[in-house]
């Protein structure tokens, strides 16, 4: 019952925030310079054509009326039609979102699988050679912009050595497995098509690594700092005095409490990657949501802007809620001090 109450409260909060976000972005999208109808139709379209489109989009109506119209459509799952692609925004998002999810999940996995062990090892080898090497790598990951990683990786592994594919989600000769989730790797695995899975994974490596580099560095540094601090705690001294193995001390007594700040930052990073993957998607020709969102803004595609922002916001809120609950699960002090809302 307690869990249900916490989840319900969190869900209500998410809906409230999404409502506020929709109002805000609906307003901001209309402040961005440029007449969306004119941009969509081009300079040669007559004023009459532009006016027709403005009326179709309800752009001549007051802001309140436009917003109510938007909410009515939204309640039926309709985000309108994109002026940029001429397709329903829901259809565009449902095509682009799985591609970004696949990329972000892969990058998130790399962040966890590489960042946390690097941080633990670095703390374990504090001030020794291994620590210095890991700290340098982590620092490079944090300070180097993701698009630089993208270009460097592409040059190294696709241009000079041709080990990995340069762009896209699949080779041109390979068709995706039957659509289930829209994530090509997962769909290939579901269909048991290992050839497609291999091709999709090969295409995923470079963009996922480029996207993950900053997160790996950040998580490694944070984990190192937290674990190092915990290593100073008296209960660690006590564990050492009892003669526990160093690995047991590191994994069981130091890492678990150190994971709380790491998880919180990881949650924020993970959600940020969804919207921030634009440059990576651009460099690797990855047809994802971030690239779609930026194109929508450049073309002042009102419906698409609102749709993309809402989806990214919802994802951000959901990930945050999951991370908060995970932190509460890991740390009894949070769990026992009250609901994680």
């Amino acid at each position: 019952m307690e869990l249900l109450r916490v989840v319900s409260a969190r869900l209500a909060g998410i809906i409230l925030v999404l409502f506020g976000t929709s109002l805000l972005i609906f307003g901001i999208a209309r402040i961005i310079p440029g007449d969306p109808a004119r941009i969509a139709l081009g300079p040669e379209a007559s004023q009459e054509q532009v006016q027709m489109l403005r009326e179709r989009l309800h752009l001549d109506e007051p802001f309140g009326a436009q917003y109510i119209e938007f909410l009515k459509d939204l309640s039926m799952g309709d985000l309108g039609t994109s002026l940029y692609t001429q397709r329903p925004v829901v259809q565009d998002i449902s095509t682009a979102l799985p591609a970004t999810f696949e990329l972000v999940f892969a990058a998130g996995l790399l962040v966890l699988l590489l960042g946390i062990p690097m941080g633990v090892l670095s703390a374990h080898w504090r001030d020794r050679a291994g620590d210095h090497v890991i700290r340098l790598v982590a620092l490079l990951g944090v300070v180097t912009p993701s698009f630089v990683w993208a270009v460097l990786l592409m040059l190294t592994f696709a241009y000079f050595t041709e080990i990995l594919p340069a762009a896209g989600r699949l080779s041109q000769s390979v068709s995706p497995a039957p659509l289930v989730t829209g994530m090509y790797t997962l769909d290939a695995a579901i269909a048991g098509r290992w050839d497609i899975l291999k091709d999709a994974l090969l295409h995923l490596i470079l963009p996922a690594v480029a996207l993950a580099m900053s997160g790996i560095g950040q998580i490694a540094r944070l984990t190192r700092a937290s674990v190092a601090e915990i290593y100073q705690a008296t209960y660690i001294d006590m564990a050492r005095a009892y003669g526990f193995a160093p690995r047991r001390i590191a994994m069981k007594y130091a890492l678990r409490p150190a994971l709380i700040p790491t998880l919180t930052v990881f949650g924020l990073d993970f959600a940020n990657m969804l919207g921030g993957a634009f440059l990576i998607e651009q460099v690797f020709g990855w047809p994802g949501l971030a690239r779609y969102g930026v194109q929508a803004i450049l073309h002042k595609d009102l419906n698409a802007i609102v749709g993309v922002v809402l989806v990214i916001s919802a994802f951000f809120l959901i990930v945050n809620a999951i991370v908060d609950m995970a932190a509460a699960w890991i740390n009894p002090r949070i769990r026992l001090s009250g609901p994680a809302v």
Partner: protein
Amino acid sequence: MNDLEYARSEVRRHIGNQWEEIVKAGFRLGLAGALLAMLTAVASAEKVLRIEDIPIGELDPAKAADVADSILMFNVYDTLVLANQGKSGVGPLLAKSWKVDGSDFTFTLRDDVIFHTGNPLTSDDVVYSFQRFVALGQGLSHLLRGHVKSVTAVDEHTVKFSLEKPYAPFLTSLTRLPVIDSKSAKANTKSGTFGDNGDYAQAYLTAHDLGTGAYRIVSHNPQEATEFARNDKYFLAFPDGAPDRVTLRYGLDAATIRTLLARGELDISSQWLAPEIMSSLAKEPGMKLVAETSLGNYSIKLNTQRAPLDDVHCRRAIADAIDYQALLSLAKLTNDISSGTPANGPIPAGVLGADSDLPYPKKDMDKARKELKQCAHDPAASKIVISWISEIPVEEKYALLMQANFQELGFKTEVVRMPWAFYTQQTATPGSTPHIGQLFSVPTLPDPDALLYNTYHSSVRGTYASSQWLVDSEVDNLLDAGRATFDEAEREKIYRKLDARLVELQPNIFGYNTKTVRVVRDGIHITPLEEKGKAYSQAVVNLMFRNITIK
């Protein structure tokens, strides 16, 4: 055997079985790989063409406007007439002939044309396509909207267009009216705002192809890629080596394009690569630059409603101060290929009305200072805002060049970077339009009207194309007369007069005439662009896949 030994033997047996399985699986995988390699070898006998452009690829032909949309349209759909190869004007395509009687045009259709759906082409399809094109009001529908009184299907293969009044660009405008399969469109119509026509099959045609073109759609994602396959039932012959399959990819980054070209995974680049990247790629082995005369131009637009450029002498002064050689040198890609050629007026060479006798402008500071003396404004007290579009980096170089040139005359200047969307909004009123704007224009039709009317007629002020805010009755009259005159010799005289009048008024600085340049891999032959006298006189038509061959 004690428990421990038993357990060890079980583990060994289990691992042993697993190894056996692994070896078998490896064998199966190897066999599958060999089969796959054989299949790939067979598949590679197909001629595959890979090209790229900027997103999105709009598949609905009635909405086609940009380059990618037009590539789709000209390959998947056909029009009644098509721009001629090697000469101006239009020739037959779906229409095998036509008669002109005053403002009535009667077309006789070919009787051997089959849509990709299997339905034969009839005059009803032409009528439906026209009505849909105009009703949707998107893409380049303005070319025909308001000019046609009626379209009727006289018989199964005869269709008649009656014009509201004489409209000279009518025939060339038909090169942008793609004909769709009306039966299939009607069968795939959803409810919508067009009465009995519902949504005019918009939802369907955004994702499906109902054309007769030389290539049909296999798959289409407007932001990622479109796959085409050759239409073997096409009514015209394909040359040897024409592609069997084509992939058009959208939105690749410059670094990615470079990598894909080097790896042999891309054959033709878009025209949007930065000049320095094109120059660099041209030096790589196995690549060449191919130029297309675009019949367009790069022009520097002067806001004729804002001081000091509201005075024609100030406009002429800054036009004389520009270093045209430097402008052109920025467009140069290699010793042989440049994306610009000198311009001497608003009508580029090759377009009806272009006057080769007009002098080519050059930097002449003495002349500029003489003009400036006649200008009512003091340059020291006048600030000129020079804008450049942030999405087009080369414009910044031009803006800085202008700044240096204008300062030689004593003008105060400010260079302002504007995102495209912001620029389009700023040009909606004369007060917010910057003094100087820059625009690369390519006419949508091989006709001077397409380049000039929307730029200079006073009735269409307030768009980024007409940001000069020019008001001149003589210009308006000449533009109207050019539209209403069918006789080509007479039209030529009108446009020559217009050419001279616009040079005199100097609402623009005529930077240079543009060429569209693409990076092409060796082994790819774009016949209209690489063989003399075979170029079509219309942008993008030269990229019809059926005219490209692969060695």
